[in-house]
């Protein structure tokens, strides 16, 4: 089976600035591909290309084996790629069910009597959220009253309901506590089990390793590594993610600069090599 989304040697330049160079990535149905990287590593540029906000300058972008160049987020949605952004595309003061269907509201009746099918909208929202394991007593409450994790889950459930084949999640756990993160990761796994291909962007290797099937590491716009889960252990992933050799260097420098053996600006003795 061919990959749902396949990027091969994709590059993106903003003028003369290299935002992304030679990045390859595959997303398969029922799998989670994690994209890991530090701030400025090119994660958001990568998302924007997959989501149709930007176009790549070099390399190839295939959707289900077909070479593609997406013109708009709408086009990406129509091709089955749904993106859930970090800042959450919800309207806080609107009820959960209105948010769930925003932009794709079902109607009934004709002409001037054409109206929202509110009963069905409420019913579907409740059922779809329940399917993802969220039991909301009242879908009429403003979505702003839900926790950050629950809001992420509503956005995910929404993408699943509207027929997304590929789900792109931008730092879904970044602003959440430990427990909430766990809840969100459970729904990410639920989306995978529903047969979606998931791209999970994160800078937390522990979260990535819990659910990921393959890991793509980005560093300053380039590929720093690509591993299947069987090929890499969490320790190694964390080390690479945290900067690998750079981290060793840093710990060395920190130890020298702030160690207890610094007296009057003069380093007296150290047992480090």
């Amino acid at each position, binding site marked *: 089976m061919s990959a749902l989304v396949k990027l091969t040697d994709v590059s993106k330049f903003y003028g003369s600035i290299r935002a992304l160079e030679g990045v390859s990535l595959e997303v398969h149905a029922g799998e989670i591909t994690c994209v890991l990287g530090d701030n400025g590593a090119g994660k958001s540029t990568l998302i924007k290309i997959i989501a149709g906000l930007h176009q790549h300058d070099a390399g190839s972008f295939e959707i289900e084996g077909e070479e593609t160049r997406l013109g708009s987020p709408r086009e990406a949605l129509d091709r089955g790629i749904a993106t859930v952004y970090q800042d959450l*595309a919800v*309207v806080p*003061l609107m009820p959960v069910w209105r948010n769930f269907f*925003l*932009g794709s509201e079902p*109607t009934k009746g004709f002409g001037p009597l054409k109206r*929202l099918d509110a009963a069905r909208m409420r019913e579907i929202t409740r059922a779809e959220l329940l399917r993802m394991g969220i039991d909301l007593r009242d879908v009429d*409450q*403003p979505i702003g009253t839900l926790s950050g994790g629950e809001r992420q889950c509503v956005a995910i459930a929404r993408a699943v309901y509207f027929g997304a084949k590929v789900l792109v999640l931008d730092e879904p756990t970044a602003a959440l506590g430990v427990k909430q993160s766990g809840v969100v990761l459970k729904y990410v796994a639920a989306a995978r089990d529903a047969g979606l291909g998931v791209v999970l962007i994160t800078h937390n290797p522990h979260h990535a390793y819990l659910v990921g099937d393959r890991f793509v590491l980005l560093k300053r716009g380039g590929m720093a590594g690509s591993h299947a889960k069987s090929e890499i252990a969490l320790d190694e992933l964390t080390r690479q993610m945290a900067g690998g050799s750079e981290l060793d260097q840093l710990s060395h420098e920190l130890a020298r600069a702030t160690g207890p053996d610094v007296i009057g600006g003069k380093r007296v003795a150290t047992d480090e090599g």
Partner: protein
Amino acid sequence: MSAPATAPAQDTAADRSAHRSHLRRLLGRPELGAVVGAAAVFVFFSTVADSFLQASSLSTVLYASSTIGIMAVPVALLMIGGEFDLSAGVMVTSAALVSSMFSYQMTANVWVGAGVSLLTMLAIGFFNGFVLTRTKLPSFIITLATFLMLTGLNLGFTKLISGTVSTKTIGDMEGFESARAVFASHLTIGGVDLQVTILWWLGLVALATWILLRTRAGNWIFAVGGNSDAARAVGVPVKGTKIGLYMAVAFCAWVSGQHLLMSYDVVQSGEGVGNELLYIIAAVIGGCLMTGGYGSAIGSAVGAFIFGMTSKGIVYAQWDPDWFKFFLGAMLLLATLLNAWVRKRAEASK
């Protein structure tokens, strides 16, 4: 022993939480603060002014409410959509002037003038919305500019064409009687004389409520006011929605303007300045959030009703009408505080 004892306890807890949920939903209605305020104002003037409860007085109060209310409806929708329109007050006068002057100068049927006026107003509304969505400048600035330009045009054109600050009478022209019947007639229901504007007002409130709560457009209005970036990301036509809202304000300004013209058959070109704030006050008293995304058309009607009761109640109580502005200001402050408090209570827990 313990098992049967805990079961009923859980039941009552569930009951209590269901009760709380109903109560919270009621408290969560945007109109609630305004309804409580309206009841208080009603009781107050019923006590201090003996003639307030007479049918003829209530009819006058309703008429005063409807003239503000017709405009408060689209202004409320616009505020829910996250924008202001400071040109709404003078636009009413512009609508009356265009209508009157076109009919008079062209010796055309009054309805032709009204038609030209409608098209002109919709064009001004479109202009407001188009410039706003194009430039992304605050609506405060753009509609303030429109407000000033219209104020100048109203006075300038009227003086240029008729030589004075008011228009020539069109009372003897063809179509005037039928236009007056539509925009400025009286109905007698059960011995009470009612102005037709009250019907326009109630009709517009009903229509706006339907649009807001039961159509896709209504969903979009809440969304563009609540979080326009999120709305755009899920495919809501943000620009179209905003332009449509400004055109709705223009349409209602046209209705109000025709009423103004048909009631007297002449128009003073300097009228309407300052009324835009009354519309905004009615919408805010009715529960619209200044920041958008929250409010209701019914609330704006209750706000306009409070305005009508206060402005006429002071007269019936035989007080100096100068006190009116003070009452309006106090009312605005109280309503806003009450709304803020109610909303905080409603959103406090889930």
